[in-house]
């Protein structure tokens, strides 16, 4: 018997540890790290270890009171982390819980000797092991040592050498020309003849050719592995990608457990994973990804992630095994056998979960929000969020999941008809619509073999999808619900058909509304006793008794696991669903805080949500967690079982808010503002009429159905106008049109104007300030409020804008009027709970643009800056308690908070990185400072901007923005920066006595100096490119410069007000002078 204690960290007792967060949410690094980090903090707290957290993401749960002991809203960069280390002197550091950001930062700190200098120990996996997995060469070398196969490519310089390499690797192979852009000269070769042809061609482009084994069509399989310092290992879950290799696992549908692997396959890959993890020396948790041949037991290791990941968060939620928590404890030196299974609370954490359901993860894309982005999915990640669905058949789980995605789909079938020009091509070159293309193909008579050959998706999944089509066709053979055989109806429900899907298949277009068909089916099936049952997730497939509150609903069962007592003590909180552009971690924070208050006030807290990247779906955050859909049907199912005292719809963003009217009609007790008042705010016409009655101003708008009417209306209000079609063909849903031509182009190409599809046209007020009111009211009276101002002028979506709280540049008069108007609205809508109003202000003229009777995106920001928990107050108000107005006033703050947005344009190939009326940011940070300047600098650095060293490229757009930028240009000049400028900007700056170097546009490629070349040569440290008007043309010069800046990772600013603020900040304040203060110290 051998005993291998790792020599790294035996018997170290930690007193204070530093946890690195992942910063703003971005594509590839999202809410899963709030979940992981929060779990790590819980694990440390349980041990009485003080936690210091660095994370500028103010909307997260981990940066909340009651989580980390000390919180720094600072960038997770070596510079700032070192400063915090210097101040805090922690004895340990956790690198595995903040994604790639934290890991990279940690490796740098190790390499530069900072960790050693301050005597800080890395908890868990040692840095050398991390580097062995991160560095491709080291990684291959490491696995070669134990004869584990990785994906290798061989560089050759002749056809003969290519042949030799291919014979060694085995056909098919991929040939890539080295140093050639855009895949020129690359391709697949099935045999020697093809190889010779292609290699000859490739060698004509490039002196070197890379030959690599082609794994096209191989399966992608993942394992999550945990190892402790005693060398005990477990694998927690096998996960299988629905899409074959070539599609990033973040872009793929993923199932757990694996569905198409035999026991031999699973055991083989499992043992291999453990062998690797032992050899690499992981201490904690890691993820292993395989390519697996569908025709043999051949495999390649794609990668090993020596940290918590999106997959580990998914595996945790899929199995109930808290990977992050356990990894943190292992980091402290515990053995797996010393920890408890936190579901059973009785058995040890050393076990491999067995699950008795199937889990399907689906990605959520928002590509429609971007101009010019490619829709094809592939090896880089573009999705912005994900959902996880649970069922007891694959059909049930995938249909639930497709509804959860929240893009207007009802499941696999029963959706509006998709227009696909070339089904073959769409199957071969998948886009974000892939699964629906399969539905279309199956309906069009494609066989499983046809689809398999085009997609290489394992036939098992396709057979299962075919079952759904078969059921749909069978349902369509009936015209009345009561004619459908009971068995068929039951089968449909077991396959995850919603009442709506059944109604659509049977009643066709007969009911006037979907809701009507829905209730016909619902009533009928209930009369037949076709009801879902509640099952527990217990990690052991019922082998041992377990008291668990982690639940889902299924039609594949006859008995509930939960005994309902009908005590009316439950409060159901509806969560926010998939993270998407416009709704992400901030609503998770709101949901979690509502749950905590509900529980504290003595009620049973019940959560419904299905996003595996969240803290709200952590089963120890509430008394009962339903990991299930937020559809009307499913929420009603749960409410009928729970018989709650009431439901909270106002903390999970728009999804729950939209259910208000229908739930109210079913007699659900909606806590807080009534459904009728919610409707009065949501319905544009009703809200507008109310404002008119109250004498509150709003931008002029009209809902119009013809071009003539639109023109007539614009004659009154003038250009520019904001145009919102109700039906969008392609591209963004909203646009600002500055002239006749743009209006014409937008409405003809992108949208559709008709009686069925009206267009809302609103006057667009330029150079107006945008102001937000976040508030909590009780019985129509405002109890707490926060007014914040946008740095940018109106026209930048409030979710993309940089927001300042408390406001620094508002007239007292403006503030007073905003308060007054808000009070009037709160009273008129009898608001109880959270709400948000957006205002436009120009010369003390105040107009209301929007009012939401729910928590807004900025609730965590204003709550944390003001240190008044708005959600706690709102929840107590909704529970009917008397709310005292907080004593302190937000105006007394002697510091400033800035919320800045994180964009993920670098992941979205082709997208034009401009800001407009539609939101495009994927995340945000919030930083505090002694003044605006410091807060701006911290927050901009937190979202990835860097202070330029030498030179700035400026194209400052319209005359107005040129003038706006003049002062900033002067400051740059004064500080000794070299200013490069395009034609008009150069002339303007020179006229104002600022020396510049004129550069030429991409459309003048022969002229030097050339803007693009300067960017490619890394001569530019910052690009300021202000588009002339608010509609973007993809092929313009500006687009090329903006896109090049993004692709070359050069900081880019496209808004004059924000650019000025940032330039002002870094020219007046040195990064070295930034104060390193905890949240508490403000």
């Amino acid at each position: 018997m051998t005993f291998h204690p790792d020599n790294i960290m035996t018997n170290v007792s930690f007193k204070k540890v530093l946890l690195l967060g992942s910063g703003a949410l971005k594509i590839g690094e999202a809410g899963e790290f709030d979940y992981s980090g929060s779990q790590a903090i819980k694990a440390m707290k349980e041990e009485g270890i003080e936690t210091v957290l660095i994370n500028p993401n103010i909307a997260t749960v981990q940066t909340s009171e009651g989580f980390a002991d000390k919180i720094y809203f600072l960038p997770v960069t070596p510079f700032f982390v070192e400063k915090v280390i210097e101040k805090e002197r922690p004895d340990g550091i956790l690198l595995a819980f903040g994604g790639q950001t934290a890991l990279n930062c940690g490796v740098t700190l190790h390499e530069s000797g900072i960790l050693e200098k301050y005597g800080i120990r890395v908890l868990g996996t040692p840095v050398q092991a991390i580097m062995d997995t991160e560095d491709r060469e080291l990684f291959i070398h490491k696995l070669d040592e134990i004869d584990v196969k990785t994906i290798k490519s061989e560089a050759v310089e002749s056809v003969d050498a290519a042949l030799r390499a291919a014979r060694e690797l085995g056909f098919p192979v991929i040939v890539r020309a080295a140093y050639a852009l855009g895949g020129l000269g690359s391709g697949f070769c099935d045999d020697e003849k093809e190889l010779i042809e292609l290699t000859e061609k490739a060698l004509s482009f490039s002196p070197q050719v890379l030959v690599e084994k082609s794994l096209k069509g191989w399966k992608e399989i993942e394992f999550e592995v945990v190892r402790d310092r005693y060398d005990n290992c477990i694998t927690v879950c096998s996960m299988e990608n629905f899409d074959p290799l070539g599609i990033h696992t973040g872009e793929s549908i993923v199932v757990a457990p694996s569905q198409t692997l035999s026991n031999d396959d699973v055991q083989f890959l499992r043992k291999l994973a453990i062998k690797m993890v032992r050899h690499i020396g992981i201490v904690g948790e890691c993820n292993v990804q395989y390519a697996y041949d569908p025709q043999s037991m051949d495999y390649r290791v794609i990668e090993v992630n020596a940290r918590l990941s999106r997959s580990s968060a998914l595996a945790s939620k899929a199995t109930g095994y808290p990977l992050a928590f356990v990894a943190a404890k292992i980091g402290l030196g515990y053995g797996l056998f010393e920890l408890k299974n936190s579901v059973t609370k009785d058995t040890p954490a050393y076990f491999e979960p067995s699950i008795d359901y199937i889990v399907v993860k689906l990605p959520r894309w928002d590509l429609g929000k971007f101009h010019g982005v490619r829709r094809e999915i592939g090896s880089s990640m573009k999705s912005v969020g994900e959902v996880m669905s649970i069922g007891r058949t694959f059909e049930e789980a995938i249909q639930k999941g497709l509804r959860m995605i929240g893009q207007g789909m009802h499941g696999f079938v029963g959706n509006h008809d998709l227009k696909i020009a070339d089904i073959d091509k769409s199957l071969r070159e998948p886009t974000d619509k892939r699964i629906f293309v399969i539905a279309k193909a199956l309906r069009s008579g494609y066989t499983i073999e046809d689809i398999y050959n085009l997609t290489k998706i394992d036939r098992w999944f396709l057979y299962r999808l075919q079952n759904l089509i078969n059921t749909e066709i069978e349902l369509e053979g009936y015209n009345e619900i009561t004619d459908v055989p009971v068995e068929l109806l039951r089968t449909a429900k077991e396959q995850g058909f919603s009442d709506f899907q059944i109604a659509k298949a049977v009643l066709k277009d007969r009911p006037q509304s979907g809701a009507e068909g829905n209730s016909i089916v619902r009533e009928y099936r209930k009369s037949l006793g076709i009801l879902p049952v509640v099952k527990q997730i217990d990690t052991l497939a019922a082998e041992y008794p377990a008291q668990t509150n982690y639940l889902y609903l299924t039609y594949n069962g006859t008995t509930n696991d939960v005994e309902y007592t009908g005590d009316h003590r439950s409060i159901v909180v509806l969560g926010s669903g998939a993270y998407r552009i416009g709704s992400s971690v901030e609503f998770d924070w709101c949901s979690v805080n509502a749950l905590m208050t509900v529980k504290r006030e003595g009620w049973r807290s019940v959560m419904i949500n299905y996003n595996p990247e969240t803290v709200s779906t952590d089963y120890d955050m509430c008394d009962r967690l339903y990991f299930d859909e937020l559809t009307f049907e499913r929420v009603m199912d749960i409410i009928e079982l729970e018989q709650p005292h009431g439901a909270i719809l106002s903390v999970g963003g728009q999804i729950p808010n939209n259910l208000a009217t229908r739930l109210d009609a079913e007699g659900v007790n909606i806590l807080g503002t009534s459904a009728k008042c919610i409707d009065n705010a949501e319905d544009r016409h009703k809200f507008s009429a109310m404002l008119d009655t109250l004498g509150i101003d709003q931008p002029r708008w009209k809902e119009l159905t013809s071009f003539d009417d639109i023109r007539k209306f614009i004659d009154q209000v003038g250009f520019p106008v904001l145009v919102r079609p109700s039906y969008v063909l392609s591209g963004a849903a909203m646009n600002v049109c500055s002239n006749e031509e743009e209006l014409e182009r937008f409405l003809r190409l992108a949208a559709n104007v008709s009686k069925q599809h009206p267009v809302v046209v609103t006057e667009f007020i330029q150079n107006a300030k945008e102001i937000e009111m976040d508030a909590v009211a009780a019985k129509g009276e405002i109890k707490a409020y926060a007014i914040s101002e946008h740095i940018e002028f109106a026209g930048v979506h409030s979710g993309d804008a940089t927001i300042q709280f408390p406001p620094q540049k508002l007239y007292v008069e403006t503030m007073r009027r905003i308060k007054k108007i808000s009070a009037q609205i709160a009273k008129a809508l009898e608001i109880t709970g959270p709400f948000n109003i957006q205002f436009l202000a120009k010369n003390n003229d105040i107009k209301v643009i929007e009012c939401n009777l729910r928590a807004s995106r900025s609730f965590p920001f204003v709550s944390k800056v003001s240190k008044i928990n708005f959600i706690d107050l709102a929840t107590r108000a909704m529970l009917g308690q008397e709310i005292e107005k907080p004593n302190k006033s937000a105006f007394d703050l002697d510091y400033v908070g800035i919320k800045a947005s994180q964009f993920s344009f670098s992941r979205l190939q082709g997208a034009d990185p401009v800001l407009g009326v539609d939101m495009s940011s994927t995340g945000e940070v919030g930083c505090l400072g002694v003044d605006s300047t410091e807060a701006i600098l911290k927050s901009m650095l937190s979202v990835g901007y860097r202070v330029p060293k030498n030179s700035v490229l400026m194209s400052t757009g319209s005359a107005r923005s040129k003038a706006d930028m003049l002062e900033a240009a002067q400051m740059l000049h004064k500080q000794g920066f070299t200013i490069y400028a395009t034609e008009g900007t150069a002339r303007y700056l020179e006229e104002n006595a600022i020396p510049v170097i004129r550069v030429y546009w991409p459309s003048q490629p022969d002229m030097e100096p050339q803007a693009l070349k300067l960017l490619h040569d890394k001569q530019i440290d910052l690009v300021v490119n202000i588009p002339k008007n608010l509609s973007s043309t993809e092929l313009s010069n500006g687009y090329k410069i903006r896109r090049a800046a993004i692709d070359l990772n050069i900081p880019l600013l496209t808004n004059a007000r924000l650019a000025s603020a940032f330039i002002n900040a870094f020219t007046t304040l040195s990064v070295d002078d930034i104060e390193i203060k905890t949240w508490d110290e403000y």
Partner: protein
Amino acid sequence: MRETRRATLILEDGTTFVGKSFGHESSTSGEVVFNTAMTGYPESLTDPSCEGQILVTTYPILGNYGVPPHLEKDTISEFYESNRIHARAIIAQDYSWEHSHWQADRSLSEWLIEEGVPAIYGIDTRALTKHLRENGSMLGKIVIEGTEEVDFYNPNSENLVAKTSCKEVEIHGDGAKTVVLVDCGTQHNIIRGLTKRGLKVVRVPWDYDFTTESYDGLIISNGPGNPAMAEATVLNIRKALEIGKPICGICMGNHLLAMAAGAKTYKLKYGHHSHNQPVRRIGTNNCYITSQNHGYAIDITTLPEDWEPMFENMNDGTNEGIRHKTKPYFSTQFHPDDTDYLLDEFIAMI
């Protein structure tokens, strides 16, 4: 919708579950047990330890990867645990009528029909599992619509060891060292594991007096049912304890070795039926995930002084293996899986 026959599971306490048939259309009866392994139905069905059992899989979807061909090398199945299905029936929530795997040569349903084994899907297997867990394994019968109902059958009233053991001495593999494998219903993977390591395996019937043979080591296999039935084996093991050659018991072999040493066994409230049983080697920090399928355990308090516990179950603290304090005898309740090294240790002893 697929036309299927109605199939009903009736438990001895009167509880019934109604589902649909996907196997052989005949009625049957046996002891209803569940298993929480998520894959491995070909192995489970052919495991002699499942003799007389109606198998309930807690993983809800069954049949995804079909069934591998019945290839035999040296009369030992390459993919199965024996030459036929031993379970009386199989029950799942959902059956996958279509399968997909490169090794499969037929569907699970086809195989079950070939071997005359009934099967049901469409019943709440989680509810059934909880019922079995709380009431202990119980007898049950499956009634397929249109076929004749049969009586309850208690496999434990029979000598299942005798039923599943080989009838004659067989020789497998070739090597300098010889091990005797007492077949109480052995899984083929034990034989594969030994021949792969270059041993000559003399597979003998459960009641065969192997002490007359010359051997370097003795292995006592797994097997179905109540260990008390294998009295003849116990008597032979007692003789082997006198001989002094290394002994290794697996699963039922663990019980039998303990009984030969003088200890007693008892029936567990919650039997171990899964691929994920955590065990710890006593006195170390080494833990293993093991595969188990049994309902009995050794009563450690009855273990003679010169023996000691070697492994324990981390979930319920029950014994998972014993060893002699001075002599080369040990046995484990689990199948060598993550613990291949145990076989290596055994071989090192001989």
